[in-house]
Every structure is written in structure tokens, then in C-alpha cells.
């Protein structure tokens, strides 16, 4: 079980790194990084069996960040988890870097490159199926965004996983209710979202995606029902932790100025 004080501290550091990275690189997508910082911190705070000292362990759990535009926060989490020095985060999007603006498997700790939405759940199905067939204990954790669930491929994988009793597969949806060009409600409503997953025979956990204890509990319950994959619908706020970024489409695109960065970091450090 994760140590909640530690995961909270980790989430703060992820947010701070991600803010600095997108500021320095003048990059987009800070909103999604802040939205999932708590999910990442808990997942990498003792849930996922991954070890920076043995990063290619064949039995390690696989983590897929299907919403690859969350790269900054993901790299920050991996650096904070010891996969590479945090100093390397400063190369984000710089000439000659492996730390691309969308997740690259050339970065230590990353298994799958992503960035085109809707690929991750199928990757997770393959990993989970492979582990099962090999009789090995590994699991697949896939982090999805809500807008991403517009893609048909997500629902092909959603249909597949319970049929093949992949209870070693865990999907987490960062359900922040905003996509690229509007709110989820305006663009393509997902509700009743939990019911859709239930109807597809998934075990569904609905949690506050910024509540570390609740997230830890949901992860700990896996597999809650033998033979069923788990989906954690994490209720989140896009831009969480920085008041002027919260729930704003603009921060899917904009990079904070030096002044905004300072204000944002002060807020993030004060967050409990």
C-alpha cells in the first residue's frame, strides 16, 4: 500500500517539474499533466511493480500512458521514481532529446510510445493476455483520457478484455471533462460512462482522482472480481493545483509565462 504522505509529496514534485518543463519548452498540454499527477504519484508510489534498478525485468508491470500528450508529467514521474536523473527533464523538447512532447519509448522507464489517442488500451490487452498465457504475475496499467474514449479502438479493447478474462488489466480514465476543442459534454458526451463499462463487463471503481487514499484503495482492490478487468474512473480537474489553470481549455494549449510559472509553482507547493 502506498505511503500517502510520500505520494502527495511526489505529486507536488511532478506538478512542479511539469510546469517548469512546459514553460522552458514553450510546450502545450500542462492541463492534462496536472490533471493526472495524483494518479501517477499513487501508481508509482508502490502500486505498479516496477523497479528503476531493474527496469527491464520481464515480469514487471507495464504502464501505458495512452494519452501521450501527458508526456511532461509522465517523464517527471519516471525521473522522480529513479529511472533517470531529474536534471534530464530540462531537455524536454530540446534539440537532440529523447524526451519528446508525446511519450517516447526511448525514455528510460517507458515501454510504449504514444501520442495518437486510442492505442493504449489495446497495448494493455496484449500485455495482459501475454502475461496470462505465460502464467506470469504481471499486470498492465493503462491511463486513458476522457476525450480519447471517443475513439472506437478503445471500445474494441473494452469488449475484448472481459471476454478474455483479463483481470490483470487496469484502465484508469483521467475524467477531467474537457477535451481539445470543448467540454466532453458539448463535443461527445460519454455519460452514463460507468454504466457503459459495466455493460461491457468491467469492474468499475469511481473515485476522486485527486484523493490519494481513494486511488490507493481502488488500486489495492485489483482484481476485485476474478476474471474481470478493472476500470478506475478518476474524477479529476484539468489543470488541478493551479487555480488559474483549473478547468480551462486554454491550458490545453498555452505555456505559462515566467510570471505565471512562479505563481503556479507557489500554488503547487502550497497544495496539500
Amino acid at each position, binding site marked *: 500500500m502506498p505511503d500517502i504522505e510520500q505520494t502527495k509529496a511526489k505529486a507536488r514534485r511532478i506538478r512542479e517539474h511539469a510546469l517548469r518543463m512546459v514553460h522552458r519548452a514553450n510546450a502545450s498540454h500542462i492541463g492534462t499533466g496536472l490533471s493526472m499527477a495524483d494518479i501517477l504519484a499513487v501508481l508509482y508510489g508502490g502500486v505498479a511493480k516496477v523497479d528503476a534498478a531493474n527496469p527491464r525485468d520481464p515480469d514487471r508491470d507495464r504502464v501505458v500512458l495512452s494519452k501521450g500528450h501527458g508526456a511532461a508529467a509522465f517523464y517527471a514521474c519516471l525521473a522522480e521514481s529513479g529511472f533517470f536523473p531529474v536534471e534530464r527533464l530540462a531537455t524536454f*523538447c530540446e534539440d537532440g532529446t529523447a524526451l*519528446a512532447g*508525446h511519450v517516447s519509448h526511448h525514455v528510460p522507464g517507458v515501454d510504449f*510510445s504514444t*501520442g*495518437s489517442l486510442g492505442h493504449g488500451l489495446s497495448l494493455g490487452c496484449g500485455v495482459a493476455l501475454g502475461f496470462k498465457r505465460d502464467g506470469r504475475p504481471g499486470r498492465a496499467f493503462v491511463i486513458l483520457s476522457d476525450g480519447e474514449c471517443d475513439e472506437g479502438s478503445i471500445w474494441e479493447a473494452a469488449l475484448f478484455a472481459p471476454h478474455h478474462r483479463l483481470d490483470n488489466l487496469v484502465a484508469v480514465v483521467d475524467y477531467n471533462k474537457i477535451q481539445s476543442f470543448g467540454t466532453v459534454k458539448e463535443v461527445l458526451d460519454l455519460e452514463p460512462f460507468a454504466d457503459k463499462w459495466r455493460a461491457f463487463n468491467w469492474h468499475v471503481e469511481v473515485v476522486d482522482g485527486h484523493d490519494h487514499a481513494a486511488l490507493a484503495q481502488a488500486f489495492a482492490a485489483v482484481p476485485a472480481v476474478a476474471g474481470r478487468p478493472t476500470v478506475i474512473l478518476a474524477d479529476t480537474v484539468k489543470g488541478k493545483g493551479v487555480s488559474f489553470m483549473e478547468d480551462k481549455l486554454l491550458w490545453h494549449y498555452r505555456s505559462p509565462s515566467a510570471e505565471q510559472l512562479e505563481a503556479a509553482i507557489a500554488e503547487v507547493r502550497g497544495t496539500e
Partner: protein
Amino acid sequence: MRTAFIEGLLEAAKDRPDIVLLTADLGFSVLEKFHDALPAQYLNVGVAEQNMMGMAAGLADLGRTVFTYSIANFPTMRCLEQVRNDICYHGYPVRVVSVGGGLTYASQGYTHHGVEDIGVMRALPGMTVIAPGDPAEAAAATKALCDMPGPAYLRLGKAGEPKVHAGPIDFAIGRALRVRDGADVTLVSTGGMLVYALETAERLAKEGIGARVLSMHTVKPLDEAAIVAALAETALVVTVEEHNVGSGLGAAVAQVVAGIDGPRAAFRRYGLPDERYSRVGGHAYMREMMGDLRALVHAALPRARRGG
């Protein structure tokens, strides 16, 4: 080019209720003016490119001329079969518009590099493939696409590309624009590489090498006459594209070159090698993967002049 496109489309669509613009959840700070002016001719379909393309064919069946908008590979490869079967096979007037062609989303990583899109789209029977060289060409292409029958792919860069053409242009789909004259070498450029081709031509001119520059905005149907003329009139023909050289403009021109019997100019392709890469960076950094066009001309021209 994005701006030239959306302004041109809005202009045309005002008098053409049959024109519809679909986006797969992209176009922030670009498409708003279209949506605000013509909400009944606009729809954000969500992050669902396959559904968008199938729907576009359905709308086209009901008499619409459909423009679909997305980034790089999402409206082409993600939904390739919808484009091939539902749109191309039926010959529907759907215009697949993609922004971020080439390496414009440089540091964003491989998933966002549209460097095989021309090749993939050009492989489809009935598909017209256009990569404008500057905003003026983008505007002219948009206008032309409103009236053309059958499907088309319009490959745009991002925003803020420099204007190459000073005055009005005589734009026609399938006809190259001769942007510069020169007697020694012909640079055949497609898309935003036009600026680089012209810069290179100017530097070559200072060294006494005359370079003709063609803007081959339409890769399919290819202006074969312009290629044949260049092969006859200059000693070296080089295709210039921000795309994999194995399948894009270079490959298309190579097919023309291969069909010529008897003496002709030497031929080279400038673009991205057919290789994977793990490092990214800014646009200029990414373009370094293609090498230096002037050096390529210097290396190839002496032998080309000797006729071999």
C-alpha cells in the same frame, strides 16, 4: 497556411451551403470563425477519425462537399480504410485536410510527424494530393478544391509560413508553378520546402549554378510535362520534400524518370531517409536529418554535366 485555408474556405462556404467542415476535436484558435459564421455547416465530431471519414462519405452522398480537419496522420492513416473504401472508391468530394504536414510538429515526437502521408494518400486510386508551398498556394488550392469533383488530400503546414509568391498566382491543380528560372539544375519542391528550395537556388546562383525551381504543389496527378521538360532542359533534377523519399514526391517523379528512354538529366531525391529515429528537437534540428540540399547539388552536378 492554416489561416489561408480557413479564410478561403469560409469565403467560399458562405455562398455554398453544400460545403461542410468537420473536425476531429482540433482547430483551437483556427476554426472558431468558421463555426461562428456558419454553425449549420460545421461540426466537431469528437476524437474519432474513423467515424468522421465514414460520416463524410455519408454526407457526400447527400450532396455535401465535405472538408475534414485534423493533424498529420490522424485523418489519413488512422482511418485509411474509410478514406480508401468509403470516400475514394465511391469518388465522393471529400477533402481530407491535415495540418502539421512534414516535421512541423518537430519536438512533439514521431506520432506527430506526417512524413509518410503523401505516400499513403498517393497510393489511393482517384485521390488528388496537394501540398501547397506557401499561404498563397494554400488559399488558391482551397478555392480550387471547392469546385473539383472527387476526393482530395490537402496537406498544410502550421501557421506563419512566409509568403513566397508576391503577386497573384496562376494556380491550377495538377500544374506545377515555375517560381524561378535557371539552366543547370531543377529543384522540384512540394509543400513548405519551397522556401528552402528557393534559398538554396539563390545561393547556388551566387556560385554560378543556375537553378530552376518548380513548386509541385500537386503530387497527384503529377505534372509530368513539367518533369519531362526539366529532365530535357537541365542537367540535374532534384525533388525536395519534407517526407520519406521512398514514397512521396521523389518516388512519384522517379516513376516519370524511369519511363524516359534516351538521354535525360541526372536525378536525385532530397528528403527524409527511410529510417526510424529516436531523437527529436526543433523544426530546424529535425530538418538536419535530410542533410544539405546545396551539398547534394554540388556532389551530383559535375557528373550530371558529363552526362552520367
